[in-house]
């Protein structure tokens, strides 16, 4: 039995300790915005934030996350979001829509999470920064639009905020 913090709420689980976080999220908690793509930590469809870092949920066990703050796409957007509102996540989501990024859309939640993590660390990333940080796969080939959307979201951010702000801190007024 492990207690984790998911989207700001404590969750006590009875799944086996070696269960990957992904399957706790999807099957037990019905947080299906986190997608299953490869199960090997390659494709990034299951990316979530763990202590503000983008982590492949298929490749970490629930037992390893007892003290961690976990945020899924549901915690960044929509009904269950942790912050009211998370302006960075909202900018990224708005940029995804403005650039009409999604085709099948299966990679979108993981990519949006990965982008939020990138922009927290590097609010105004170069193309090289994006290449290095965004390793999620998109089989529909939306990469040119993903790049544009990341730049669009970055350009909507203030020049200096967010870079070091810990998760959970509301944006400066």
């Amino acid at each position, binding site marked *: 039995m492990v207690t984790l913090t998911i989207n700001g709420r404590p969750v006590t689980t009875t799944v086996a300790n070696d269960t990957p976080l992904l399957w706790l999220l999807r099957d037990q908690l019905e947080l*299906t915005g986190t*997608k299953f793509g490869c199960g090997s930590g390659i*494709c990034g469809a299951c990316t979530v934030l763990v202590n503000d870092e983008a982590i492949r949920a298929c490749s970490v066990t629930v037992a390893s996350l007892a003290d961690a703050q976990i945020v899924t796409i549901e915690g960044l*957007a929509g009904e269950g979001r942790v912050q009211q509102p998370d302006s960075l996540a909202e900018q990224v989501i708005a940029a995804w829509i403005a650039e009409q990024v999604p*085709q*099948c859309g299966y990679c979108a939640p993981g990519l949006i999470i990965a982008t939020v993590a990138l922009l927290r660390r590097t609010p105004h990333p170069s193309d090289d920064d994006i*290449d290095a940080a965004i390793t999620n796969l*998109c089989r529909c080939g*939306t990469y*040119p639009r993903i790049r544009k959307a990341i730049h669009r979201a970055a350009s909507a951010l203030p020049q200096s905020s967010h870079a070091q702000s810990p998760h959970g801190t509301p944006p400066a007024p």
Partner: protein
Amino acid sequence: MSPLINLSRRAVLKGSGALILGFHLPFLPVPAAMAGSSPMAINAWLKMSSDTVAVIVARSEMGQGVFTTLPMLVAEELDVDWQTVRAEMAPLDPVYANPLLGSMKTGNGTSLASGFLPLRQAGAAARLMLMAAAARIWRVPLTELTATAGVVGHAPSDRQASYGALAGLAGRQPVPPDPPLRDPTTWTLIGRSPPRLDSPAKVIGQATFGVDVRLPNLLHAAIRHCPVLGGTLGKIDDSALKAKAKDKERSPTGYRPGVIAVVPLTNAVAVVAESWWQAQTALADIAVSWNEGANADLTSASLDSALTKALDTTDSHAIAIAVSHGDADHAIAGAARVVEAVYHQPFLAHAPLEPMSATASVTATGCTLWLPTQDQEQYAKLLPPLLGLKPSQITVNTTFLGGSFGRRLESDFGIQAALLSKAVGRPVRLVWSREEDIRHDFYRPASVSRVTVGLDAADRLIGWRHRIVAPSILARVDPGALKNGLDSAMIAGLDDQSYALPALLIDSVRRDTGVPVGFWRSGWHSNNAFSTESMIDEVAAAIGRDPGHLRRTLLTDVPRTLGVLDLVIARAHWDRPLAPVTGGRRGRGLALHQAFGSVVAEVAEVTVFDDGRLRVDRVVAVVDCGLVVHPDVVKSQIEGAILFGLSAALTGEITFDKGQVLQSNFHDAKALTLAEAPTIEVYLVESREAPSGVSDAGTPPIAPALTNAIFDATGQRLRRLPVADHDLRAQ
């Protein structure tokens, strides 16, 4: 907006007081099976409430944009604010058949082509019926009414009513048989790029894909197929799954906690459990013996050699001649110069990002499926004999498809889910691991093509002979379409190529291999564009002509194709040298292809570094797909089609040993990454012709454009894909 609305025709009409507008489409006869038996045999494309208009979409949304482009056609004629439009997936029903494919099915670039007229007529008819309803209520002549932006108005009496308020009565008005359509110059949606209707749910993780279906009492299943293709299940030893003594009382099934059942299938074993991870880990603990069957010795080398050998067949019964005009053999025999090459293309996996998945609930009286599929109707044929049910007892609900590229035309995962649900008597959601997905695909067929071109003394093309050897897809999916055992479909894109060739002989040789093959984005066009567009480049090199300009001389009688070529030459700055780069060589390659009614030309620019690394810098594409309904969707589809084809051309290859697929996940079945993606420019030709296919049409030209660019950079001609198998280091 959920695609999971189970909208039976009865529900549409009764609608629990909802304002529903249903009507016959005059050009689509009500199927005979429905006409006599049911008064509900009415077509329904629209549901209206006070603030939304739901358009029923009868094609699967797999990324290609039908949840946006098809509603646009209805909304354009209905005259409603786009903000109020929603898309809902149609249930399986004969009235939703694709007229170009003969059943409820999505593919072959037909969605817009088949919907362009009927869906506008549906919108126009609905608008007239709304006006007729208002005319009856207000007792005014129809000619005094206006209907725009979701409101019917009567100016003389200053009265207005929303479409939603009128919809109930409108649904009972006679359907206008031939509603006039708007003058295209007054269109406000078609030709523009309104926001996609499916994006908002997708970006926040609220869209329901196959793996996301939730039901009460749902169980989860994982599957392991016979590793040898075509093999079957032998014996299962599941003793390692039996509950330990301390768990016995928690485990009524006798298995360890969480595990519900071990289910044998013809060619696989599945575990049903309370969660997917329990099922997947239990699978690993089962010992299985397999009947490996006829493919146990199959290797990539043996496959390639069998296909290559068949190139030289002289058995006329093995050769399907597709096109023969002039005497190509004679022309080539007497040619001043002959250029000949053999092109080898590998088997390819589809690998959509969402692995195969399906959810089924089977009872004694029915089977309901929730799944991402391109072919709903096949389940009403395939499942009844397996489940002891009637076709009318099969219900198919289509979720969003997390990519497909042709893979979800196949029925395998849906049938498995149904059999598993029947076995355990509860709803089951089956999800394949990525390893199963890569290893048990219906692969894009490998092919070996020989192209022989004869030129006269003035370097004019006088004869072209083209043979493709490949395993047949039709032999499995539509054996009735074989002619004398021959699959003539494998010449798609060769028989209608545009070049002026005085003598032409195109034929195909079917050589089945034991590897399951199926349609992959653009079908046979991907194989045939590569061989054709590589050869044109080879001819240009042989005679010292610019490959772009050589194509121009062969297209003077085909203005549409020539226009596409000329535009790509201009937009790519084809005639300007590329900026050199230190430590590498740069090159540019062109290819064009006609498929699904569209013409697409692409120019790829590459840098080949001296250490052998390849970078694709830029791709410029020009597309003539007839009238463009949604320019941004077309551009995004072409971008995606290019990157899908590029990913395959660079590294895509499924190989075999001992009858087993050697690749298993994205580490060895690599997919293109963001860092590797070139910049892409897409230009659309203005056209008033009917819309034609886009999502498929963008893929065929990119592989030859790429290898032609590598030739331009290095002088190395790659006749065997993928590119990654070649050493591109500077000599």
